[in-house]
C-alpha cells in the first residue's frame, strides 16, 4: 500500500496544494457534520454540569454509581462470553471447511450462510429466538416432550444473561467464520510438510507452528466480536423490551427520558462506551498488523 502511494506521488502531482485537497472536502465536511460534531458534543457535555461549567463529577460517577458499574459489567460479560464462545465455534467451523478435510463445496455454502447470519440481527433475530427458546418455543417444547427437560424450571431464561448470550452468538460465530477462513487459508502447506519431515506429530504441528501463527489473528477477531456485541442495542431491546441492564439499553433509556436524573451522566456513559470500543479497535488493528507478518 505504502509503495503504491509513493509511486503515485513520484509520478504525478509533486506539489500538493490546497486545490487538490478540495477534492476530498465534501467527505470531510460530511464526517465533521455527522460523525465528529455529534461525538464531540457528547464528549464536552460529559464534562459539563447542569449549570454549564466544567466538572469531572460525571466521569467519577461512572465508576462509583452501582447502577452504571453494573451495566458496564453486564455488557462486558455478555460481550466477552459471546466473543469467546462465538470465537471458538467460529474457528472450529472455519477449520472444518478449510483444512479440516470437508468437501470443498461445503465451504461456499458455509461462507454464504455466515454472511447472512452475521447480518441477520435486530428485531427479526430476537423474534426467531423467542420462537425457538421462549417459553413456548420449538426447542423448549422438544426438550420438554421428548427428553423431559424443562428449561425454564432449570433456571434458564431467554430474557436474561444466558438467553441474550445465546442470541448474540447467532451473529458472533458467523463473523468469526468470515474472518478466520481466509486466515486458515494462509497456513502454508510447506510448513506442515516441513514439520512432518522433521518428525512432528499433528498435535505438535498445531501447537508449535499453526497456533503461534494464527493466534494474533484469532485474538484480533475475538476482540472484534467483543466490540460487535458491546455496541449491539436493537437485538437486546427487541428481545427483552429494555428490561436487561446492559450499557446500550441504559443509554437508550437515558435518551428517551432522563432516567439517571443527570443528563451529564448519560453523556459520560456514552463516552465510556466509545472509549471501550476505541480500545478494542486499537487492539484489533495492532494484532492485525502482527498477523500480516505470516499470513498473506
Amino acid at each position: 500500500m505504502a509503495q503504491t502511494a509513493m509511486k503515485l506521488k513520484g509520478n504525478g502531482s509533486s506539489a500538493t496544494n490546497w486545490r487538490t485537497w478540495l477534492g476530498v472536502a465534501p467527505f470531510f465536511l460530511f464526517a465533521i457534520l455527522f460523525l465528529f460534531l455529534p461525538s464531540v458534543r457528547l464528549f464536552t457535555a460529559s464534562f459539563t454540569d447542569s449549570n454549564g461549567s466544567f466538572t469531572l463529577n460525571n466521569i467519577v460517577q461512572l465508576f462509583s454509581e452501582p447502577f452504571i458499574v453494573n451495566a458496564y459489567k453486564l455488557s462486558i460479560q455478555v460481550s466477552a462470553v459471546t466473543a469467546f464462545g462465538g470465537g471458538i465455534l467460529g474457528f472450529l467451523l472455519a477449520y472444518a471447511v478449510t483444512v479440516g478435510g470437508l468437501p470443498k463445496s461445503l465451504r461456499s455454502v458455509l461462507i454464504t450462510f455466515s454472511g447472512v447470519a452475521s447480518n441477520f440481527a435486530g428485531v427479526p433475530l430476537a423474534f426467531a429466538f423467542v420462537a425457538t427458546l421462549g417459553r413456548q418455543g420449538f426447542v423448549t417444547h422438544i426438550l420438554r416432550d421428548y427428553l423431559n427437560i424443562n428449561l425454564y424450571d432449570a433456571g434458564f431464561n431467554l430474557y436474561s444473561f444466558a438467553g441474550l448470550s445465546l442470541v448474540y452468538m447467532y451473529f458472533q460465530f458467523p463473523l468469526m467464520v468470515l474472518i478466520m477462513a481466509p486466515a486458515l487459508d494462509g497456513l502454508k502447506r510447506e510448513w506442515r510438510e516441513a514439520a512432518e519431515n522433521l518428525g512432528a506429530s499433528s498435535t505438535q504441528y498445531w501447537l508449535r507452528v499453526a497456533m503461534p501463527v494464527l493466534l494474533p489473528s484469532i485474538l484480533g477477531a475475538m476482540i472484534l466480536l467483543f466490540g460487535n456485541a458491546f455496541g449491539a442495542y436493537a437485538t437486546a431491546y427487541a428481545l427483552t423490551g429494555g428490561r436487561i441492564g446492559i450499557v446500550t439499553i441504559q443509554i437508550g433509556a437515558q435518551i428517551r427520558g432522563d432516567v439517571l436524573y443527570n443528563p451529564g451522566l448519560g453523556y459520560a456513559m456514552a463516552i465510556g462506551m466509545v472509549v471501550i470500543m476505541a480500545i478494542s479497535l486499537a487492539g484489533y488493528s495492532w494484532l492485525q498488523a502482527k498477523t500480516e507478518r505470516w499470513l498473506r
Partner: protein
Amino acid sequence: MASSEDRKVAEMSFWARLRKFPFWSWLWLFIGALYFVLPLFATFEFSLSWDPEDPLKAYQRAFEDDKFWETFIFSNVLAVATIIASVILVVPTAYWIRLRLPEARRVVEFITLMPFVVPAIILVFGLIRIYSTPFYVPFTDIRFMQPLTNFKIGTNILIVAGYMVLAMPYMYRSVDTGMRTVDIRTLTEAAQSLGANWYVIITRIILPNIRSALLSGALLTFAIVVGEVTLASFLGVDAFGPYLFLLGQHRAYEPAALSFVSFLLTWLAMGLIQMFTGGQGQAAGAH
C-alpha cells in the same frame, strides 16, 4: 488409472478409512448448521401454526396491513437514498485519493473506521443532541435554520446521513478495493486525452469499471438499512424496523412471518453479493 486408484481405496482397511474420515470437522459443521437452522425453522414453523386449515394465514394477514407496506416501502426508499448519497460521497473521494491525494489515505481510512467505535445508539444520541437545537449564524442571534428533528424532511435527511455513517466502512472498503483492481490512472489519462471532463470520467469510466464492488457495497447497505431499528426509533421515523418491533408487542404470528421474510431478504442480498464478488463474504453491523 481410476481402477488402480479404486483398488487402493478398497484395500484400505475399515479402520484406516475411519481414521481418514474427518469426524470432528463433520461434528463442528453439524453443530454450526444446527445453530444456523433451528431458529429459522422454529420461526417458520411457528408462523405456519396459526390456523391448521390455512397455514399461510399469518403471511396473508401481515401482507394485508397497509402499515406494513407503508413502512417497508419507506425503508426501501431510505435504503436507496442512502446508497445513492453514499456513492456520490465515497466514489469521488476514493478516486481522488488514489489519483491525486495518496497522503489523505490514512486519515480518510481512519475516518471510515470511526463508525466501528461509535455504535448506532451513541451516534443517534449525538445526532439528536446536535440537531434538535436550531442553528444560529455564528456570533449572532440570527436563526439560520430550525432544528432538523422538528420537520419531516429534516428528520429524513438526518436518518439518511446516519445510515451513510453506519454504511461508510463497508461502502468505502468495497469501492476502494474495486478501484485497486482497475488501473484508474491509465483510464483517467486515456479519457482525458479524448477530451472527457471529470463528470464524464467518473460516471462513464470509473463507475462502470467498479460496478461489482459498488453492487456489493450497495447490497450490504441495503441489508443494514432495511430493518434498522435504533436510528429509526429514536429519530421517530416510521420505518420497517420500528414497525416490526411494535407489531411484536401485541401480535404473535405476523411478526414471526415477517421475521422469516426478512431473513429471506437478507439471504437474497448476501447471495447476490456472493454472485457478484465471487465468494468474498462480508459482515455488516446493525445489531
